[in-house]
């Protein structure tokens, strides 16, 4: 058992070293000043506009297609919308990586680097990548409207629960700001 584990660990260690030795050093001297200039202009990380996200994942178009009562058209719509949604999430994920890459290529020179802040930032980066991964999985499995469907389903369940317990309805428990109201 232990020798097996050791061999796997050593193999992984050597593979990592091989990765390092074969790494393309083309971008080794990525010009940090150029990056910063691009940062200031704001054009390097132009993320897809918010309207685009709202439109891709909005149920309005789906409702409109449903009105045509054409199953073929609906199928086509779902297929295309799924592709667009996957593309959008992938692009967002790539841009998160680019932002982080620019950050670490600049921060590596910095004498006053804050290790705690860097660690926290790395955590945020992982969180964003994970979110993109989960979103991709959900889109692939249930389609682009999965999240809004899930939200509306949760809402319905909550309403039903409220109806089942008339004395402690959801409206009396949940304040507008998200705080628990005193019954």
């Amino acid at each position, binding site marked *: 058992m232990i020798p097996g584990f050791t061999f796997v660990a050593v193999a992984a260690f050597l593979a990592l070293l091989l990765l390092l030795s074969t790494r393309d050093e083309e971008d080794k001297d990525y010009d940090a000043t150029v990056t*910063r200039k691009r940062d200031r202009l704001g054009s390097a990380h132009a993320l897809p506009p918010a309207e685009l996200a709202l*439109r891709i994942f909005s149920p309005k178009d789906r409702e409109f297609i449903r009105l045509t009562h054409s199953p073929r058209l609906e199928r086509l719509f779902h297929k295309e919308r799924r592709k667009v949604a996957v593309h959008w999430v992938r692009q967002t994920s790539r*841009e998160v990586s680019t932002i982080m890459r620019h950050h670490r290529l600049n921060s590596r020179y910095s004498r*006053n680097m804050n290790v705690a802040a860097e660690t926290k930032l790395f955590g945020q980066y992982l969180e964003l990548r994970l979110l993109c991964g989960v979103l991709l999985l959900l889109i692939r499995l249930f389609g682009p409207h999965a999240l809004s469907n899930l939200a509306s389903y949760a809402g319905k369940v909550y309403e039903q629960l409220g109806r089942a317990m008339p004395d402690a309805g959801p409206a009396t428990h949940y304040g507008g700001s998200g705080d628990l109201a005193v019954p």
Partner: protein
Amino acid sequence: MLNMMIWSVGIFLELLLLVRGYQKQLYRQFPIFYGYFLFVTLVDFVRIGAYRWASIHFFQVYWVTQFLSLAVGSGIIFEIYRVALRPFRGAARMARCALLIVFAAIFAKALTIPSGEVFTWLAKASIELERNLRIVQALAILTLVLLFLWYAIPFGKKLKGILFGYSLFIGLSIVQFVLWQYSWEQIRPFWSYAQPVCYLLVIGIWVRALWSAEPHREVYPNAQIESDYELLMASTRGQFRKTLARLGWVARA
């Protein structure tokens, strides 16, 4: 006979590396690495002497010099850290912090051994002790390599060769020691050849990397970036916040 042949080839390659280092003045760039090599070459001559004229003391000489080589060899990790991260002060700071955590974790693990057993542990077979020290070295190298990959630290052929060769040496040593511990009977016939052959392989990598005429390229830090760190952090955080908000709209759509 075969053992002596492997040994001689090893000494020849070590001398070749030292001569080349002297000719190209590489010892100025990598003083610890060449110091280690000088030490290892001298150790080889001491071992040959012990083997020929005092063979009854050979194993004592072997293990004492082996531990000294291990201690001096740890300096190579420091050299890799020093040369690679010299212009990258931010990455060097992160590396110091990460290495501190790794060594603190190892130290904490060592403290869990009851005090009475520490001496028993030290007195255990030398091979086991060397294996444990090699694992510590491997963890330190792993931490450095992960940071080098994360911060895209450029190396140059020479430093990359030193790092790859030494890591391979440590990796192969750990495998050998584990094999020794768990399947001694099966590997006994090959044991006396395995370590020298692996060492020849490693020294071959070093000769090839350090033979290169390409000079070690210095990278100079950018003064503007040093002063703009807070701005950089704020900018990255802001962009992350915007992206998170955008991903949140997906659920709200």
